[in-house]
Each structure stands twice: as structure tokens, then as C-alpha cells.
């Protein structure tokens, strides 16, 4: 067993950390406050080469391994959840299914522009009536001559309505067989007539990330926009979510790491009763517990990445990582606020943002309950 990062992975970690500290940290609080999506930061993240990290070079990507990508998400999330969300959703939900299931023409047409920071692609699965139970979808795709006609709506779609959104991979019902819905995945470009993307406002967390409601009103796209084959929708969705779980886990890990560092620094600085509050055993032990949880979370997540990179089954470990990393993000951020006392409740302190941002992680891309369901099935319950 070798627990060391390669020289290259270590350099990626340091590089992304430098970038996050220099470019994101100074503006994160303000963007959160204003609930503003930053085109400038998205552009810079593109220039750094974080979009399409795992995509082969011929499509404009970097051809790096999963672990390098996960480290990048972790390092961005260590500083800001919103930017990590833009990055993780675009890579894991936008680019990845196009790369895995797209035809050569589709890949050449869409992928290069999605690696630069000039364009984002979203993944439209969730609907008002279909959250955890994606089979509850109502959006339909019907063949009409050489076109698909799409009707329905999607909700909570990350990167769906930014000005630079180029399109969405839409999960739709294309028919029925033996009383069961047939799911098919179709690519819809942003400027297609009948397609409307409306930003969702009033989020408690990820306030600087773009979240959209999508509406499809007789949206007509050519039959070539089919991703994979007819009826392959569920498989595409499940496989995409397996990969997506790793990046949500990375967000949990990064969030926990960031909150822990803030708490440790504060505890060493803040004096009460004549000494730093970190010298009171209860706080010292809290910090020890945080550090232990983070270490466990990192080991589990990196192992899941290792499995994926070595082409071994990783679905169970991905669900475990997503569950554990997001749950400890909650615990760590909560105690980090506690250590900050009243200041931890004020917006001037970054820990307040971490406390809010972690809350999505136990809900998005499969709730903690659903992760437990996935794991319990895999272990033979």
C-alpha cells in the first residue's frame, strides 16, 4: 500500500490551493452575500485548466486521473463551496456523460468549448415530482420525423442558467415497455426555441453558484442529439451519479478541512480566562476529533478514486465517501462555529459561510438516506 500522492498530484494540490487562496478567498464572502455568479472566476478556473481535467487531450482536456481532479475540487471547497460547485457540477455532471456516452461528432462539437471556462453544460435529472425517486420523472421526449420533441421541466439544475450555459443533458421518458417507463438522455442546446432557463434565487448555501429551473415547451432537437442509445437513460444517469458522488464527497472533505483550519486558528488566538481557548481540553478534543474525521474521510475518498482510476468497481465506495464526507462536513462545520462563539454567527467570519454551504452536501446528488440505501443494497441487505 502506498498512501503518498505522486509528485504531480502533490503539485496540483499546491497549485490549486495557491489559486484558491489568491483568487477566490478575497471575493468569496462578497459573492456569497450578493448571490452573484462570477464569470471572472469561472474564466480563471478555466485558464488554470480545471475544467475537463479528466477528459482526454484531443477534446481539450488535460487527461489527468480522477484523484487529481478530486484533489482540485477539495482544494477549491476548502476555500469556497460555491466555486467548488460550479467546478464539480460542470466536470462530473456536464462534461463526464458527454465524454463517456457521446458520439465522436458530439464530443468534437461540444467538449472543447467546455474546457476553457467560456461555456458550461448542465445535467437535468431532478424534477419537481422526481427527486430521490428519479423514476417519477414526467418530462417526455417523442420522436417526430427526424426530431425529438421535448416537454416538461427540471428543477435545481446547477450551471443551467448562467449566461455562458451552452446546454443541458436532459433525462426524459421516451416511451413505455411492459408498463415501465423508458428513459432516454438527450442533449438540448441553450438557445433552442421553447427552452427556457430561469435562475433560482434565495438559496441558503452555494449562493454564488448558478441553480436553475428549466422549462421545455415543444422543444425540437434533431435526432442526432440523442446521447447514447434509446432506453440507456437510466444507465447514463446512474453511472454519472457514481462519478458525481466522488466530487460531492470532495466538496465535503474540502469544506471540513477549511472549517477545521479556521477553528484551529481561532482557538489558538482567542483568549478567555487568561489562555487560548484551544488549551481547554474540551476544545482541544473537539479539534482532535475533527482532524480524525477528516483523515478518515480523505482516506476513504482517495481509495474510491484509486478504485475508479484502476478500473475496479467503485460504486459502493463512492456512495460511502459521499455519505461520510458530507456528514462529517456537517459535524466539523457545526463544531467550528461553536468554537468561534458569537463571532461564528457573523457574516464577517468565513466559518459562517462554511456552516451554510455544507448543508447541501447531505441532500444534493442523492440524499444521505439514499446513499445508505445504495450501500445497504450493495452489502446484501
Amino acid at each position, binding site marked *: 500500500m502506498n498512501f503518498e500522492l505522486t*509528485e*504531480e498530484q*502533490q*503539485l*496540483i494540490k*499546491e*497549485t490549486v490551493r*495557491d*489559486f484558491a487562496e*489568491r483568487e477566490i478567498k478575497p471575493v468569496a464572502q462578497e459573492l456569497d452575500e450578493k448571490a452573484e455568479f462570477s464569470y471572472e472566476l469561472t474564466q480563471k478556473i478555466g*485558464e*488554470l*485548466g*480545471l475544467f475537463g*481535467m479528466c477528459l482526454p487531450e484531443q477534446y481539450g482536456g*488535460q*487527461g*489527468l486521473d480522477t484523484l487529481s481532479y478530486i484533489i482540485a475540487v477539495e482544494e477549491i471547497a476548502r476555500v469556497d463551496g460555491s466555486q467548488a460547485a460550479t467546478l464539480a457540477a460542470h466536470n462530473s455532471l456536464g462534461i463526464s456523460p458527454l465524454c463517456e456516452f457521446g458520439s465522436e461528432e458530439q464530443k468534437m462539437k461540444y467538449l472543447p468549448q467546455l474546457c476553457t471556462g467560456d461555456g458550461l453544460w448542465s445535467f437535468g435529472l431532478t424534477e419537481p415530482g422526481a427527486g430521490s425517486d428519479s423514476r417519477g420523472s414526467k418530462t417526455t421526449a417523442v420522436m417526430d420525423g427526424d426530431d425529438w420533441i421535448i416537454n416538461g421541466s427540471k428543477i435545481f439544475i446547477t450551471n443551467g442558467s448562467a449566461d455562458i450555459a451552452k446546454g443541458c443533458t436532459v433525462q426524459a421518458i421516451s416511451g413505455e415497455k411492459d408498463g415501465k417507463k423508458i428513459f432516454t438522455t438527450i442533449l438540448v442546446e441553450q438557445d433552442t426555441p421553447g427552452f427556457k432557463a430561469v435562475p433560482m434565487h434565495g438559496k441558503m448555501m452555494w449562493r454564488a453558484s448558478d441553480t436553475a429551473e428549466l422549462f421545455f415547451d415543444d422543444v425540437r432537437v434533431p435526432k442526432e442529439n440523442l446521447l447514447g442509445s434509446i432506453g440507456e437513460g437510466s444507465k447514463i444517469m446512474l453511472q454519472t451519479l457514481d462519478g458525481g458522488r466522488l466530487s460531492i464527497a470532495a466538496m465535503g472533505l474540502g469544506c471540513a478541512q477549511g472549517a477545521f483550519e479556521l477553528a484551529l486558528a481561532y482557538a489558538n488566538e482567542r483568549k478567555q480566562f487568561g489562555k487560548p481557548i484551544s488549551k481547554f481540553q474540551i476544545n482541544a478534543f473537539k479539534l482532535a476529533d475533527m482532524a480524525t474525521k477528516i483523515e478518515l474521510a480523505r482516506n476513504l475518498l482517495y481509495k474510491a478514486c484509486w478504485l475508479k482510476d484502476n478500473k475496479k468497481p467503485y460504486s459502493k465506495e463512492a456512495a460511502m465517501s459521499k455519505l461520510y464526507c458530507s456528514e462529517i462536513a456537517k459535524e466539523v462545520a457545526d463544531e467550528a462555529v461553536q468554537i468561534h462563539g458569537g463571532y461564528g454567527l457573523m457574516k464577517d467570519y468565513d466559518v459562517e459561510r462554511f456552516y451554510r454551504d455544507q448543508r447541501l452536501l447531505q441532500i444534493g446528488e442523492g440524499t444521505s438516506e439514499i446513499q445508505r440505501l445504495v450501500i445497504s443494497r450493495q452489502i446484501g441487505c
Partner: protein
Amino acid sequence: MKVLVLISNVPDTTTKIRFTGDNTAFDESGVQWIINPWDELALTRAVELKEAGSVQSITVANVGTKATEATLRKALAVGADDAIRVDTEANDAFAVATQLAAIAKDYDLILAGIEASDYNGAAVGGMLAELLDFNSVSAVSGLQIEGDTLQVNRDIDGGSQLLSMSTPAVAIVQKGITKEPRIPAMRGIMMARKKPLNVVAPVGADDRTSFVNFELPPAKAACKMIDEENAKEIITLLHEEAKVI
């Protein structure tokens, strides 16, 4: 123009400094190593000049053991074309300059940081210029290349000079040489993998200095608070205790 940038491998600037062996050696355990910040600025300027077309190639060089290769690899990721590591411990400025002199003869321009952030010796650049008999200017805060000539800004007390200098030359650079050190892009990190990192054997050079022991600077004195009502006391303290007025 062929440029050589000297790269010193130093502890991260936030490292908690500790010593071992009864304060005779720096404790390297758990230390994260980085490119000396001034060298990083020099390298960034070299990359900018290469992008502008006035530099043909950038080599980075370090005197150090295998442990420093990660730092050289980063320099390659930032944009150097190749790297040289002289395979010996870097204990003393004169020894380092002597090792570098053996590999630096063929470059038109050598960029050195004004000092290294570990021991702040501020000696290697000047010594190297002397050993090579190259022109040199220190405290360079601006660098342009015009044909075979260098235009350098040198900071002096209360102002700055613009100097013109012929090559081969050593420019010993400081803050201002570029805006910010460049962060390597993922593409650069990938390409660094394939760039040559040549390890060369050291020439004979004796250390002229050695460490006897280390001492940490005294802890910062506690901040004295003075009540609003006693504003006059601050004058007395500044006068008699701090002796600044």
C-alpha cells in the same frame, strides 16, 4: 537570448521553525518546500519575456539533493524548458556559487533572486557574477530586453535608476520585477513531466562557512494597553521605554 534562472528550494514561508541536535540543525520534518519567492518572481519574468519573444529558452538550476526535484518540476510547470540539478548539498553560498559557475557559462542572462527566504544570505547572485566575470546589477525591479542589451531598473535609496547593460550578465531581482508569481496551469504540470531534468555531478568546492548553532528570535513583547483617561502615559512610554520619540 538564453536565460538561466537560479532556483533555491526553501521551506514554505509559513513553516514553524524548529531545531534539532541541540540547536545545531534546522528540523526539516514535516516541512513543505517551495521555490524561493524571489526566484519565483524571476522565473515568472523570464516566462513573460519568453512569451514576448525576446527569450529563446529558459533553464532553471538548483544545487541540491534529489529532494529538491519536486521544486524544479514546479519551475518546469511554470514554464521553464529544462532543469539542471547539481547533485550536492547546498550548505554555503560560496560553494553554491562555485557549483553554479560550472554550469552557467553559456547563458546570456542569469536571473537570481535578491536573497533566499531561508537564510537570507543575499550572496549567491553576486558571487556567481564575480566567478563568471559577468556584468551584474542587484536590486533589479524591472527588466526589459532590447536586442542584446538589457534595460534594468535598480532601486536605490529614495528612487530608482534605469541602467543599460550588455550580456552576458547576472540580474539579481527583487519585488517589482513582475506583478505576481505565476501559478502553473494543469497543462503546464502535465508538460513538466516530459521536460528534461538533468542531474550533473558537482565540481570540487569547499564550504567556507558552517552552522555553529541556531537561536530563535525573542518572542514578541506583549502589547501594552493604555486606558483612554491616561493618554499622556503613552507619550511617556514612547519616550522612555520604546525610546522612539
